[in-house]
């Protein structure tokens, strides 16, 4: 069965520190991989996505993610977090076409402290 696992439900980091949010996927075929962010009282917004090519993909607001086929992972990173990065982050996978088979992880709640 297709699945996306985010092993960390909550992560707390200090402002200015580096960040890694983990994501592991189990998916037949070659999926699109995504990271979305949800700020409080808002819908989800795309941070970045990956399908092929360079395994390190750049996103908005200084985020990047690295794909590893051998490890079935798609971890999100940021070199220096800001308090405004506090939000819930979702990793997701979908087939090349046909969005109705989107699979979301359970989300990681990030809290950035001063």
């Amino acid at each position, binding site marked *: 069965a297709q699945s996306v696992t985010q092993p960390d439900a909550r992560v707390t980091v200090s402002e200015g520190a580096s960040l890694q949010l983990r994501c592991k996927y189990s998916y037949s075929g070659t999926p*699109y991989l*995504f990271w*979305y962010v*949800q700020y409080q*009282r*808002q*819908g*989800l*917004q*795309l941070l970045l*996505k990956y*399908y092929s090519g360079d395994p390190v993909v750049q996103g908005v607001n200084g985020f990047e993610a690295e794909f590893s086929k051998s490890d079935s992972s798609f971890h999100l990173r940021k070199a220096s977090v800001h308090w405004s990065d506090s939000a*819930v982050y*979702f990793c997701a996978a*979908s*087939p*090349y*076409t*046909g*969005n*109705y088979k*989107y699979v*979301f992880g*359970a*989300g990681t*709640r990030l809290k950035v402290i001063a």
Partner: protein
Amino acid sequence: ETAVFQTPNYHVTQVGNEVSFNCKQTLGHDTMYWYKQDSKKLLKIMFSYNNKQLIVNETVPRRFSPQSSDKAHLNLRIKSVEPEDSAVYLCASSSYWGQNTLYFGAGTRLSVL
């Protein structure tokens, strides 16, 4: 810039009442979705419409019914709400050939008393 619009933002109602939520997208997409997000932030797809055709109906209770008048609009009706229906309902859209990015509205928060 918001391109998926949901109304209302909040709705409080009592058990047994009927409620309706509206969603409109101005992105020209051909596929729209309803997701339910529970209090733990878990996302569950409820319905998907592609060009007004229902293409997925996950095992949601029969009191839920989606309605689409055209590819830009997707509504959700709950015939007789139950306490477990309290959640945030997120509408999303995508282009079938658009590398699968989902665009979400801000959600409708339903509270059932």
